[in-house]
């Protein structure tokens, strides 16, 4: 009996043909199933290909059914272990909760011209650096720019959240990484509510100046909203 790689847990009773052709199958319990494939000797490499394949499986399934996506890299020793897993009452609760939900990820990025904006208010430091372009003066100016950017991010994120909150069930706010990154949100919305978010974002984007470039991905399975109500053990 080979070990199994776990993609997620679903109420679906079948996998689409395209996935079945790739060796994806279900270990079915009474009302739910683990989405798995046979796993050779590990380790599983966190390569681009493997990560995208995992996402592809849960995202394709999510188009037709409720899916709780597993974090990348879980293996199960046997079918029995899979059955045990899907029998957990917490799993049932999560499946209930996500029956009609989906996740949208929203990232916002500034144009480089944001520097002109935040730099405009930093005349004394700019003058200092211009007069004497030393490393110290540069760091002082750069730090001030970084701080002004952070304030800008906080303000813009608050505004975006204000506008979207009425349309979403839950929000997960993460650190925006990247020099010009403005925000990084995961939004849990009703499957029927995706368009409303998109529309609102369009309105918001048209009003923001200097512009914020949004990237909205989804509807995705609820990757960011499947925490089990169990104490985590490292």
């Amino acid at each position, binding site marked *: 009996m080979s070990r199994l790689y776990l993609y997620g847990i679903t109420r679906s009773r079948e996998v689409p043909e395209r996935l079945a052709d790739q060796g994806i199958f279900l270990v079915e319990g009474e009302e739910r199933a683990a989405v798995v494939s046979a*796993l050779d000797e*590990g*380790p*599983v490499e*966190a390569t681009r290909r493997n*990560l*995208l394949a*995992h*996402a592809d499986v849960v995202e394709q399934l999510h188009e037709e059914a409720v899916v709780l*996506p*597993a*974090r990348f*890299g*879980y*293996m199960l*020793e046997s079918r029995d272990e899979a059955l045990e*897993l899907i029998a957990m009452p917490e799993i049932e609760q999560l499946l209930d909760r996500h029956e009609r939900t989906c996740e949208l*990820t929203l990232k916002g990025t*500034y*144009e480089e*011209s944001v520097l*002109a*904006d935040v*730099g405009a*208010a930093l*005349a004394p430091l*700019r003058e200092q*650096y211009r007069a004497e*372009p030393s*490393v110290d*003066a540069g*760091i*002082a100016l*750069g730090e001030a*720019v*970084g701080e002004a950017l952070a304030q800008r991010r906080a303000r813009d994120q608050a505004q975006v959240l204000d506008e979207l909150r009425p349309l979403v069930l839950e929000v997960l706010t*993460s650190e925006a*990484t*990247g020099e*010009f990154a403005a925000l990084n949100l*995961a939004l849990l919305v009703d499957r029927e509510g995706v368009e409303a978010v*998109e529309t609102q*974002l*369009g309105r918001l*984007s*048209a*009003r*923001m*100046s200097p*512009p914020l*470039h949004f*990237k*909205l*991905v989804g509807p*995705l399975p609820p*990757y960011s909203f*499947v925490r089990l109500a*169990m104490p*985590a*053990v490292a």
Partner: protein
Amino acid sequence: MQRESSAGYITRAPRSSGLADVLEILLDRGLVIDAYVRVSLVGIELLTVDLRVVIASVDTYLRFAEAVNRLDLRQVDDSRSVPDLFQQGGEEVASTKTKGAVEGGMDAIKEKIGLGGRDGDDDDDNEDDGSSRSRSRSRSGNR
């Protein structure tokens, strides 16, 4: 397979399409089941650090300083604060300030220095050739 469209300032993708899209959702999120054995994973660290740009680096600060220094702001009244400048485009944004004397000053400057028309299209999708972006990357960002 991916349908991706860009309308105005919104890039829309129905599914995760690049490494940047999936890294966070699959490595930081997703269902965690402590009772079960995790496959020993190879490669995660390399992938995650690549995405995490630590902003608080001297290198970044110096580049910020250089970028700001290049901007010829002398034509602008330096007493203007950021919220004032912001008002020219986003009416409702700067609600705390009401000084409104700014008339397109920043736009003029951006045009002059060629920043205004720059399209910030270097979003997450080109993460694979991340080296083409002159950003400082650090290995200290992972948990």
